[in-house]
């Protein structure tokens, strides 16, 4: 009975490798030449120097199964063509390497000699593990919390509302204006804004920072008290049904509140999941604007809706580029435009932009406590990059990255401050009263 269940789950997993009419899948599973030249582009290999961490080894876990079940050569002569069974041992390696040793940062893709979309294959492998109920429990709990409560930290609605009200009072005090607001559940607003639940839970000041920016811009905006979570860990656990459900929460809420623009708060993967994947998860085009807060602030600066005085922020800053916003999101220039408008001195990491190293906390790694040691070890690469800049402040428009950077700041004794973009923009705001 048990072995029947295992087999039927494996069959479901194997269905996901059936090339069918998916040109990208067919291409990705057939193009790696195992030259190994991607090794040095991956921080897991750089940190541990073990062959199993080479990006191509992760691709091969999935493509070897494809060859075994979907190619004549793999069926006839599996050893000759590196075709492998989907068995217990393979599943164990897949969990360990596809969940535990890939942040899906995509750094290897650009540097691959062929151009294999490695994280795309890794994600397909994660999807296989998801249908076999093999997602690491910690990651699955994060998704479950989002599905069941509307936010991945399961913050009760009244607690969230209390935090927002508290931040609103602070804003009123700081602005000296009774009309300074953090609106909740208001209809027909221009902006429907979203947050990473880490903000109300641990970093409420970043909410007051963006509220200050909206106040200065005279923006018409609202938050939802129930569906404000910009994250989507369904993007990482490989369960597309759950990813679609989470994407649907924001879609339905902006429709319900009749908002005009969905503004994705400072979260790399969340922005990617809602902006680029959301319409595909939900199988519909969005009839509202769907952009990141970095781009919105860029609009404010260009149009003169907010005034910044960068001389107010004098320390030496550096930028950590979130993989999902820069390499996989095309926002490198926009982030620099906003940061350079807000602070006096910016020194780039080496490398940066599309070549930047992941903070180490991507791909759901921050949610998977099973791999904490690995995550902190690979974070040393980022720590060294930061150290080399001599910067006192690291700016990053992603709360996931903030979390990992705070941990490596502590572990590697960097002595830096980590800030989001809204925070540095708020610091340099000139508000005429």
């Amino acid at each position, binding site marked *: 009975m048990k072995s029947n269940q295992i087999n039927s789950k494996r069959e479901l997993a194997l269905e996901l490798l059936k090339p069918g009419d998916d*040109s990208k899948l067919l291409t990705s599973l057939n193009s790696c030449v195992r030259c*190994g030249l991607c090794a040095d582009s991956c921080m897991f290999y750089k940190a541990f120097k073990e062959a199993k961490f*080479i990006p*191509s080894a992760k691709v091969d876990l999935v493509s070897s199964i494809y060859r075994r079940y979907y190619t004549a050569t793999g069926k006839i002569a599996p050893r000759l063509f590196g075709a492998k069974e989907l068995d217990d041992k393979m599943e164990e390696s897949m969990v360990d390497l596809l969940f535990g040793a890939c942040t899906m940062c995509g750094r290897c893709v650009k540097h691959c000699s062929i151009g294999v979309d490695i994280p795309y294959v890794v994600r397909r492998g994660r999807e296989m593990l998801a249908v076999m109920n093999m997602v690491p429990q910690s990651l699955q709990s994060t998704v479950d919390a989002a599905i069941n409560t509307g936010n991945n930290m399961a913050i009760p609605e009244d607690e969230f509302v209390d935090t927002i009200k508290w931040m609103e009072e602070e804003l009123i005090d700081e602005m000296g204006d009774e009309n300074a607001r953090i609106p909740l559940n208001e209809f027909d607003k221009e902006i429907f804004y979203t947050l990473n639940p880490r903000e109300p839970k641990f970093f409420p000041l970043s909410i007051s920072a963006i509220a200050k920016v909206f106040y200065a811009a005279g923006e018409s905006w609202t938050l939802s008290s129930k569906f404000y979570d910009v994250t989507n860990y369904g993007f990482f656990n490989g369960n597309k049904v759950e990813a679609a459900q989470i994407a649907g929460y924001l879609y339905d809420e902006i429709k319900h509140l009749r908002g005009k623009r969905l503004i994705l708060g400072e979260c790399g993967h969340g922005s990617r999941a809602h902006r680029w994947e959301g319409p595909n998860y939900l199988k519909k*085009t969005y009839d509202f604007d769907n952009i990141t807060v970095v781009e919105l602030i860029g609009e404010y600066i260009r149009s003169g809706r907010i005034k910044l005085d960068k001389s107010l922020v004098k320390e030496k800053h550096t930028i950590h580029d979130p993989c999902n916003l820069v390499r996989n999101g095309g926002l490198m220039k926009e982030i620099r435009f906003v940061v350079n408008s807000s602070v006096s001195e910016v020194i780039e990491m080496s490398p940066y*932009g599309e070549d930047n190293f992941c903070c180490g906390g991507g791909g759901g790694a921050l949610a998977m406590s099973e791999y904490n040691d690995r995550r902190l070890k690979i974070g040393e690469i980022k720590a060294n990059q930061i150290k080399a800049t001599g910067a006192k402040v690291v700016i990053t428009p992603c709360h996931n990255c903030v979390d990992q950077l705070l941990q490596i700041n502590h572990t590697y004794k960097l002595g830096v401050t980590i800030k989001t973009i809204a925070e540095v923009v708020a610091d340099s705001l000139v508000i005429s009263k």
Partner: protein
Amino acid sequence: MEWFNYLAIFTAAICFTTFLYRLIYLLSLGLPKDLSKETGSVKRGIIYSFTGAMSPMEKESAFLHLPTYAAGMLYHVGIFSSLLFFVWVIVTLFVPITLPSLVSIGLVILLSLSSLAGFSILIKRVISKELRYLSCADDYISNFLTTISQVAAILYILVPGSQVIYFIIMALLFTWMPLGKTRHLLYFFFARIHLGFFYGRRGAWPTVNKS
């Protein structure tokens, strides 16, 4: 024509047809359907994918591994030259023409260097612990066959009477090509198209000048 000529032509035809079939199939599938709102340009992304993004300055797989990269480039030039040379050889079975001696000499030099490059890549695969971990028999066979096909072409030019060996090795290569990892000959182009599509529509490619 001798039996070995027929053998090589037959396997080449099967190989060509298989690749052509796969090419038409992949083309018929088109680009992925994506419902998100494009902010960049797919066209520019794809063009960049085949041009700027392939620059050795842009790829760590090239600039961190210059000797391997150079050997790989040379090896691939040799492979394409030896395939073109095979077409030439087949034509000469029907039309009595000979290769100008300067071209023959140039080809021998090129194929000698590319064979050396091919063998060096093979040796690296054998001695490197990491590469052995990644490799299966296909990797060694594909590399070996493509390399000795170039050596065979040199023999064909320089040593009268080596035709049998040449045609048999080419037949082996053509049999293997659609089966082994050598099929990346086709998938490479689609991998680049998909990357261009992915990064282009998000405005991430072409990358901005960082300096």
